[in-house]
Structure formats: structure tokens, C-alpha cells
């Protein structure tokens, strides 16, 4: 009887707290968004499931000794998982469109204004006493505007580990929402005539350029911003493996089983940080609101920069490709293409938008390096 009581007292029903129930519901909501609404399912399925597992009362899966805690310690706290994902993303990235038109790097730079404006906003809200963000918190919230999951997770794990769960969820959710967030801003900031601008055919980029570019980028990072070297270093390594064509078997594994395995573990580990205590408070609301501001400001900054470039440059530049500078690869580039087709059904912008799109990844990693350097 005593043992029977013990069993009952050990059930989840007896032990559950309201916060855990709410977090399980939030995990389920993430699964619903991922599976039914196709919100970045590769990440949100593991994150959502991880959130459910982590909040099962008395199971301790996310506490020391539990599997998810182990994954978090080994992979996120150490920075290893985001770096390995970056290596895989590098091995899947084609810098061809960027090399064909290096000016698009300015679009990738401009779109990072979302990060810094949001950082400023978070500081201001803190100064006004509405929230209580430290400089590290503000920087980690701003990085949501990088529209790049592994970068956001890497920076948050270094500068504000207790906010990691909310920041990662915000980053992936808004990346999935890019087709809803960006178009109104893009339409508001461009004229019909601008959206109809046709861009010149891209030149052919030689294999030698593609092999040397990651090395050039690596050297610049090494000399100018060592704090971005882990992120961009692994990114360049993945890309070099792909482009050099003599280590295809390594590159294939990097693009497939390696990145898939790490994605599963990373997602579960991030999900394990969705605790009631750290998620169910006004801070999370602040993060979610500031995050969408970051996306919107980044989008606007990219478009405005594209309009400026269009004025300066001899070659025509369609301002719609500016919004692709926020990264969110390849969704943002597809949104640019979509709006181009809406204005003129023969105006294919996809290849042109891939330049600022991958430039955005570089820009975000540079911004991440500066934040880490400055704050820590």
C-alpha cells in the first residue's frame, strides 16, 4: 500500500505544476506549427519534442544525468553543435551568385542593421525600466535579427544562456514566417517600377574563384575579427570541402548524415531549455516582440540599401533583392523572386537574390563576432 502510494506520488499527474503543463502545451504548439504549418520543421520538430520531454514532471530528462541535459552540455554549452551545423551549411552553400556580383555583399551588410537596432531597442526598454536586460541579453536578443539559427544559438549560448530557448524559438519561428513578414514591407518601400527592374544575366564564376573565396574570407576574418573565426572558419571549411572537389566523400557526409545527426541533437538540446521558469515570463514576450522588430528593420534596411546601390551602380539592381540580405536562406531569396514575378511575370530574381542571401550569412557571423568581442 505504501509502495502503491509511492507509485501514485511518482506519477506525473500528482507532481505536475501548472508551468510544466503550459510548457508541454507550448511544445505541442511548436510541433503543430512545424508539422501542419511547415514552420522550419527540421528544427522545430526536435525543439518542440525536446520541450515536451524536458517538462515531463519527475522524469528529469533535462536535468543533470538526463539525456537532453547531456546533449546540452556537450553540444551547446561547448559551442560544438552550432559550429558543426555551420560546417554543414557551408558545404551546402554556393557562393557563385555572390562572386558574380560582389556588390550584393553591401545588402548583406545593411540588413544587419536589424540586429543592432534591436539591440538598441532592448537597451532602451531596459533604461526605461520596462524590462531588465543586461548588455549581453540585449545583444543575444538582437541576434535574432540575423535570421540564422546556428548563429543565434551560438551567440545566445555565450552571452545569455538563460534566454537561449526563447531566442532560438523566436529565430526559427520568424524565419518560417518570412513569407508573411517581408512582403508588406517590401511593397511599402518599393514602387511598381522598381519591382519591375530586370537585372543583367550573371557572369560565369570559375571553379578557382569558388575555391579561393572561402580561403580569402577566412584570412580576412582571421586578421580583422578573430571572435568570428570559429563560426566563419567552420563555414569556410565546409564550403572549401564542397568546392575543392577532391574530398567529395567528406563533403557528402557533412551535408547528410553529419548535419542531420547534429540537427536532431541540437534541436532536442535547445528544446530542453524551454523551462517554465525561464520561458513563462514577460521577458519572453519582450524577446518575441523585439525579434519581429529585428526582422522588419533588417528587411527595410536591406531594401533601402538596394535602392541606394541602384542609384549609384551602373548596372540595374532590383530593390526587391535587398530583403534577401537578412539571410533566412533560401526563404528570403524565394520571397524576392515571388514579388518580382508578381510585378512582371518574366522577371526571375532568384539567382540574383541568392547573392545577398548568402552575404547575409557572412554579415550575421561578422556581427556575432563583434557582439561576442564587445560584451565578453
Amino acid at each position: 500500500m505504501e509502495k502503491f502510494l509511492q507509485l501514485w506520488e511518482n506519477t506525473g499527474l500528482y507532481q505536475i505544476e501548472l508551468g510544466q503543463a503550459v510548457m508541454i502545451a507550448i511544445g505541442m504548439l511548436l510541433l503543430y506549427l512545424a508539422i501542419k504549418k511547415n514552420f522550419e520543421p527540421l528544427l522545430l520538430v526536435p525543439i518542440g519534442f525536446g520541450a515536451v520531454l524536458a517538462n515531463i514532471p519527475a522524469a528529469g530528462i533535462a536535468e543533470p544525468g538526463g539525456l537532453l541535459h547531456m546533449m546540452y552540455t556537450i553540444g551547446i554549452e561547448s559551442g560544438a553543435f552550432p559550429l558543426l551545423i555551420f560546417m554543414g551549411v557551408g558545404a551546402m552553400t554556393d557562393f557563385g551568385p555572390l562572386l558574380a556580383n560582389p556588390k550584393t555583399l553591401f545588402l548583406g551588410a545593411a540588413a544587419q542593421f536589424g540586429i543592432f537596432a534591436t539591440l538598441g531597442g532592448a537597451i532602451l526598454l531596459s533604461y526605461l525600466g520596462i524590462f531588465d536586460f543586461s548588455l549581453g541579453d540585449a545583444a543575444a536578443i538582437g541576434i535574432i535579427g540575423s535570421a540564422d539559427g546556428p548563429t543565434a544559438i551560438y551567440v545566445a549560448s555565450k552571452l545569455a544562456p538563460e534566454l537561449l530557448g526563447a531566442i532560438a524559438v523566436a529565430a526559427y519561428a520568424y524565419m518560417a514566417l518570412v513569407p508573411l513578414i517581408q512582403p508588406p514591407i517590401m511593397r511599402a518601400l518599393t514602387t511598381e517600377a522598381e519591382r519591375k527592374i530586370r537585372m543583367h544575366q550573371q557572369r560565369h564564376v570559375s571553379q578557382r574563384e569558388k575555391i579561393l573565396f572561402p580561403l580569402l574570407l577566412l584570412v580576412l576574418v582571421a586578421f580583422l575579427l578573430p571572435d568570428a573565426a570559429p563560426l566563419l572558419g567552420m563555414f569556410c571549411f565546409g564550403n572549401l570541402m564542397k568546392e575543392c572537389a577532391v574530398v567529395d566523400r567528406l563533403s557528402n557526409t557533412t551535408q547528410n548524415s553529419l548535419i542531420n545527426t547534429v540537427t536532431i541533437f541540437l534541436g532536442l538540446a535547445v528544446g530542453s531549455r524551454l523551462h517554465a521558469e525561464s520561458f513563462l515570463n514577460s521577458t519572453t514576450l519582450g524577446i518575441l516582440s523585439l525579434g519581429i522588430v529585428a526582422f522588419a528593420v533588417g528587411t527595410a534596411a536591406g531594401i533601402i540599401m538596394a535602392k541606394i546601390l541602384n542609384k549609384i551602380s551602373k548596372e540595374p539592381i532590383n530593390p526587391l533583392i535587398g530583403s534577401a540580405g537578412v539571410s533566412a536562406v533560401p526563404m528570403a531569396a524565394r520571397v524576392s523572386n515571388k514579388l518580382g514575378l508578381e510585378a512582371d511575370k518574366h522577371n526571375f530574381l532568384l539567382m540574383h537574390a541568392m547573392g545577398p542571401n548568402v552575404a547575409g550569412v557572412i554579415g550575421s557571423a561578422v556581427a556575432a563576432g563583434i557582439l561576442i568581442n564587445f560584451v565578453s
Partner: protein
Amino acid sequence: MDDYNLLTDGLNLMMLGMGFVFVFLTVLVLATSIMSWAITKYEKSVGKLPEEGIPAPTAVLAHSKLEKPARLTSDQPIIPILTAAIHKYRRNKKN
């Protein structure tokens, strides 16, 4: 750190950060352009790299180039290939 300092630091970081991103990417634009220009010029006289990668050292193995066995080393497990080759060879011999 009091609130005022936080505000100053935030402002500093905003300006410094955005500035540095632009400086870095501007340098990258320049460096990339120079690199592309130099490579294009160089490739006009020397020729392009093969997109499928460079074959293995040819000093000795030169005239087997036609059969392209060297290419295999770099991205395929060679031993199974050799094994398969041996098997094939034997099978052919038997027939």
C-alpha cells in the same frame, strides 16, 4: 554598471558594430573583386580548373591517365574498388 553606462555601452556597440560590419564587408568586396579580376586574367593564359577536381599526382603514373584510375583515389574508397576489379578480373578469366 548603472543604467546610464548601459545606455552608452549600447549606443557604442550599435555604432561600432554596424560600422565594423560595413568596413568588413567593404574590404571583402574589394578583396573579392581583386581576386576575381586576378583569377580571370590568370585563367586566360593558363586555363581553368576542371570542375570535378584535380587528378592524383602524375609524375610516375602518367600514362595511365587515360583510364582515369587516379581520380578514384580522392573521393571513393579505393580498396573496395580494387576488390571489385579483382573479382571482375577473375570472373572474366573463368568464363
